[in-house]
């Protein structure tokens, strides 16, 4: 069985089918890309997996555990954590405190003070925020807050991290810095990522495999090269 196994997930909001019969398998250690125009259902899929939204049909199995019906905090403690497209830092806490909360609660195990400090330091290091650890999260730039989102997910000890448009709103310099950060994280083979990205170039470079959603349906699936040559994708994206 795959590390993350999604079968036949649908989500209906009133008359709108946000997701219809989506299935996908994410293998351990890979970077799995999700692509699609605005409103294609990417964020909804994240919310379903992370437990923020209950699916109308289908199920999500992570690492052998059925996630459907579990609370987001429970899902996080099982090792799956997401970031938010519109960042949600704990604005009044410092950067380090943000990560400390994640380390204290994210793993579901009681860690010692020393272990907590080590997890926090490692997460800060991973996203280059070590020098800003004592700032209030609210004082960070958007790019800093996006990094904080990633670090916070890492600090929970998650094995699978879902990144929701961590490059959106960043300037070109910041995008390439972020790309370097993600490339470095990928070197750590204990982590698995599912990423949603509007910056298609970045998605193509990073992902091992890509799934394309359009109006809640899967329309293509394959390696970046295959997706680049896919007729239907070209049609949706380039008209």
């Amino acid at each position, binding site marked *: 069985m795959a590390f993350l196994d999604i079968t036949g997930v649908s989500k209906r909001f009133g008359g709108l089918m946000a997701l219809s019969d989506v299935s996908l398998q994410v293998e351990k250690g890979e970077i799995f890309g999700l692509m699609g125009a605005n409103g294609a259902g990417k964020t909804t899929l994240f919310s379903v997996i*992370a437990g*923020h939204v209950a699916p109308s049909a289908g199920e999500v199995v992570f690492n052998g555990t059925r996630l459907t019906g579990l*609370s*987001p*905090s*429970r899902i*996080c*403690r099982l090792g799956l*954590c*997401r970031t*938010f497209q519109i960042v*949600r*830092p*704990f*604005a*009044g*806490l410092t950067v380090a*405190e943000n990560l*400390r*909360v*994640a380390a*204290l*609660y*994210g*793993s*579901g195990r009681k860690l010692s003070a020393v272990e907590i400090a080590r997890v926090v330091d490692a997460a800060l290091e991973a996203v280059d925020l070590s020098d800003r650890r004592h700032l209030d999260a609210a004082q960070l730039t958007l790019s800093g807050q996006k990094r904080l989102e990633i670090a*916070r*997910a890492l*600090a*929970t000890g998650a094995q699978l991290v879902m990144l929701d448009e961590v490059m959106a709103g960043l300037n070109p310099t910041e995008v390439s810095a972020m790309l370097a950060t993600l490339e470095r994280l990928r070197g750590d083979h204990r982590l698995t990522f599912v990423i949603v990205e509007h910056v298609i170039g970045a998605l193509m470079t990073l992902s091992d495999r890509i799934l394309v959603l359009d109006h809640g349906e899967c329309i293509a699936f394959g390696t970046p090269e295959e997706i680049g040559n896919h007729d239907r994708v070209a049609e949706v994206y380039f008209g």
Partner: protein
Amino acid sequence: MILGVALAVFGAAVPAFGSPYLMGVVFQVAMWIALAQSWSMLSATTGYLSLGHAVFYGVGAYVCVLLTGTIPFELALLAAAAAAALFAALVGMPVLRVRGPYFVILTYGLSELVRHVVMRIESALGSFGRMIFDVPATEVLLWWMVGLAVLATLGAYAIRHSRFGAGLAAIREDEVAAETVGVPVTRLKLLAFIASAAIPGAVGGLALLRTSYFEPAQAFDPVISFTIVTMALVGGTETVRGPILGAVGFALLSELLWSSLPQLYMIVLGVTLIAFILFVPRGLSGLVGRIGRAG
């Protein structure tokens, strides 16, 4: 920590000097410290501002008046605290789903609802206020109240500096994000609610023993809730000493004004509260901290 010890020493010193008036004042000060600190265990940590803490005080007083005479008063006080905590546990789940201004007004409404229900029960029983006789000596009650103030202060301190407190702070900042990084939001909120209800229950019982008279309209008076909120917010919610500063300040002011001009006291309370929310959001304790650093 130091504050707690100082409080205990202060409380211990008073009965030795023994003027009944002074003991009355200290009883009041300790009572408001205990209430404001308990309030801060929920409201300062999570940002869920309760405007209904009178309900816990009232439940405690009611349980205590029903039990006095049947069991020793120490046990009655324990039962009062337990009843208040139990009440919080029962209503907590649905109440804590409501957020922001709606939570504030809901806690107020809930407290008023219970007040009217108890008033109705009492008048159906044909009781218009209950006197109790054979209450413990004033010194004993004072000791208990000071003990509760110290306990509440230590409790508030312990919560803030624990894993539990870190989770509550995350809830205050962003509940959805807290949930996403593994904080069991519902459970922590409920625990904080229960923790913040227990001591006010015992305080209500003690205050009842001191006045030796129970009347539901008084025991559940919304003015209690409002005074707690004002003391805590004016004192400052960011530190443990904040509620102490607020409670001491207003309790002393109340000694000056309450007996002669109660309305003026309430007006001062309202004006100070508004001024502090708008212009001194960190409260007295923030001010003191700033002066301390400057000097």
